[in-house]
């Protein structure tokens, strides 16, 4: 982890930004609280002084002298010294020993210091000139409130600094953790790029944005890996399935070269070769067709298709083949749903049904049964046979290109039929399910309601 990169991480910057925002808000809040508290305390002190002054001024001179003389008894610690002075400011009575110059000059409560034991103590006082020219002064020790104000300020500053410190530490931690995660993800991506397709991005427990992103990328990687496997499977399939007929073709031609002596024999050999090549071409065409449908190119040619009609046509088309094998092929449910339409391509849907019927007829033994059912309420078409069925572990694989289970390798076909059905189903937003019909196999094509 490089420290210089830390300030560039998004989480660090975000944390800093929030810290600044939070700091500004706290500062404003503190200032407000401080201003209100201090303001309230000072107003309270000033009002007290005002009350005292008004009280003394209202008394007769003799009463005032009497009161001022008695005042020290009520104020033993000289916390609220008051006194009366003559016009020149010389002390007459009270426990305030001298009239501070600040009080004489201001016509409102002011701060002044009284030196006691060489230490200046803060006081707040208020003085007024009486009608007889004497000065009357009241005051109050404000050492404690001033201490409180200073304490408040210190506490707030301290809290602010602590917040700043923790915020910074948090930002660094966040930035570092996100950097660590990004580093881990980068590392994983590099490994994937160099070919480790099974590698996945690290995902932690929480559902935060980075994890969500990583999960999405991982599911994309799952798809990619599956596709790569499929492509590899197709390539292997092509290689495997084409080698046999090509070898046969080569063998036949070589034999003709060595042995054939008449035009007739050569003609037979070329006819044989032509047949083999046509078969190969058919396989290639089928492959191309599957990829073309897979690319969704034909969706542009979609229209409303009378599903029951197409299904009935497909069954009708295969009826003679079934009869030939003494298989009973029956269709249910189309008569009552003749008006059911699906947005799609009639020829492709016919192809899908035809491939399923073709398979069923191929694998059901003579005398068997095939039931085709259109269930409009369930939005499904099912084709059920009582043949050998498909083993549970092969039900997904049969939809892949070139998959043929072992016993079927001897039967004709290119192993592309069901994968064609799968891509046609996919193109029409249909789901294809292969289930057990005990005995036999049921293939269900279902589509979402309301299309």
């Amino acid at each position, binding site marked *: 982890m490089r420290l210089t990169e830390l300030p560039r991480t998004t989480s660090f910057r975000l944390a800093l930004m929030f810290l600044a925002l939070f700091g500004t808000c706290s500062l404003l809040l503190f200032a407000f609280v401080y201003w209100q508290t201090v303001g309230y305390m000072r107003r309270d002190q000033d009002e007290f002084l005002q009350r005292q002054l008004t009280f003394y001024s209202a008394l007769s001179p003799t009463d005032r002298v009497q009161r001022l003389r008695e005042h020290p008894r009520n104020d033993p610690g000289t916390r609220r010294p008051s006194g009366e002075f003559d016009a020149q400011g010389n002390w007459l009575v009270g426990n305030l020993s001298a009239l501070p110059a600040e009080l004489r000059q201001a016509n409102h409560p002011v701060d002044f210091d009284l030196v006691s034991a060489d230490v200046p103590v803060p006081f707040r006082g208020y003085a007024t000139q009486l009608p007889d020219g004497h000065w009357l002064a009241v005051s109050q020790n404000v050492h404690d409130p001033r201490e409180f104000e200073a304490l408040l300020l210190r506490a707030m500053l301290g809290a602010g600094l602590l917040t700043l410190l923790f915020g910074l530490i948090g930002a660094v931690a966040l930035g570092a953790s996100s950097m660590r995660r990004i580093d881990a993800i980068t590392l994983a991506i590099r490994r994937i790029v160099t070919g480790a397709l099974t590698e996945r991005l690290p995902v932690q427990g929480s559902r935060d944005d980075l994890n969500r992103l990583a999960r999405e990328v991982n599911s994309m990687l799952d798809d990619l890996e599956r596709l790569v496997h499929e492509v590899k499977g197709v390539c292997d399939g092509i290689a495997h399935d084409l080698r046999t007929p090509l070898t046969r073709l080569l063998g036949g031609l070589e034999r003709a070269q060595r042995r054939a002596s008449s035009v007739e024999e050569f003609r037979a050999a070329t*006819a044989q070769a*032509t*047949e083999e090549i*046509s078969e190969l*071409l*058919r396989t290639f*065409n*089928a492959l191309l*067709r599957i990829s*073309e449908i897979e690319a969704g*190119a*034909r969706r*542009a*040619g979609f229209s409303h298709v009378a599903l029951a009609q*197409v299904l009935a*046509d497909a069954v*009708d*088309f*295969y009826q*003679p*083949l079934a009869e*030939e094998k003494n298989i009973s092929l029956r269709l249910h449910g189309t008569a009552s749903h003749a008006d059911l339409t699906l947005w799609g*391509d*009639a*020829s492709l849907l*016919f*192809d899908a049904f*035809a491939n399923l019927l*073709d398979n069923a007829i191929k694998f059901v033994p003579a005398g068997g049964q095939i039931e085709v059912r259109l269930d409009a309420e369930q939005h499904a078409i099912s084709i059920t046979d009582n043949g050998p069925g498909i083993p549970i572990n092969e039900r997904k694989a049969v939809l892949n290109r070139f998959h043929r289970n072992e016993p079927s390798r001897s039967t004709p076909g290119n192993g592309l039929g069901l994968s064609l059905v799968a891509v046609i189903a996919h193109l029409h937003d249909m789901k294809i399910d292969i289930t057990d019909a005990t005995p036999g196999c049921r293939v269900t094509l279902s589509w979402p309601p309301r299309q």
Partner: protein
Amino acid sequence: MSRILVVEDDAATAAEIVDALADHGFTVEHAADGQQALATIASGNFDAMVLDRMLPGTPDGLGVLETLRAAGVQWPVLILSALSALDERVRGLRAGGDDYLTKPFEAVELTARLDALLRRRYLPQQETSLRAGSLEIDLLNRSARRHGQTIALLPREYDLLAFLMRHASQVVTRAMLFESVWGYRSEERTNVIDVHISKLRQKIDVEGQPSLIQTVRGSGYILHAPD
């Protein structure tokens, strides 16, 4: 002898098509792009055209076709395309094409379709019955008779027979049968059509006589009309 104009820009494909059509007995002219095609059409008489959908420059295949139809030229046009996408086919037919073939195709598929297009042109449309030797079908009440004996046919079997009889003495491919009789388009299903044909044969053939419907190896079927 029918004169066919082949409009195809790819020299190799064009040579292949020209050879195949010449072998089949057509007189063939070739144009490599849209301009040349229109010039050739203006200077000569043709019975049909094989037109590549994709041509370099303007006009492209559909452009040529539209110009042609706008000028009132009615002879049949078969469109060739590398794209089998349905909407391409629909666009081609809508622009005035009579048939559509996807590359790659077999020569016999092209010649058989051209034969069918040319035949359709000369066949009177108001026929009410078709006859091939002792076999006769009534187009109005959709029934078939051989030697005057009514043959019970399923609707689809009747359609199959009617198509073969309309194109009597011509090769029809399985794809053509599938398209016109079943109304779907697909490159497969050939073995199943054989089963339908063999069922039809059982119904219309007379024992001891060769079948009216002959299999043409590697191509399709032909219904012979013995005169």
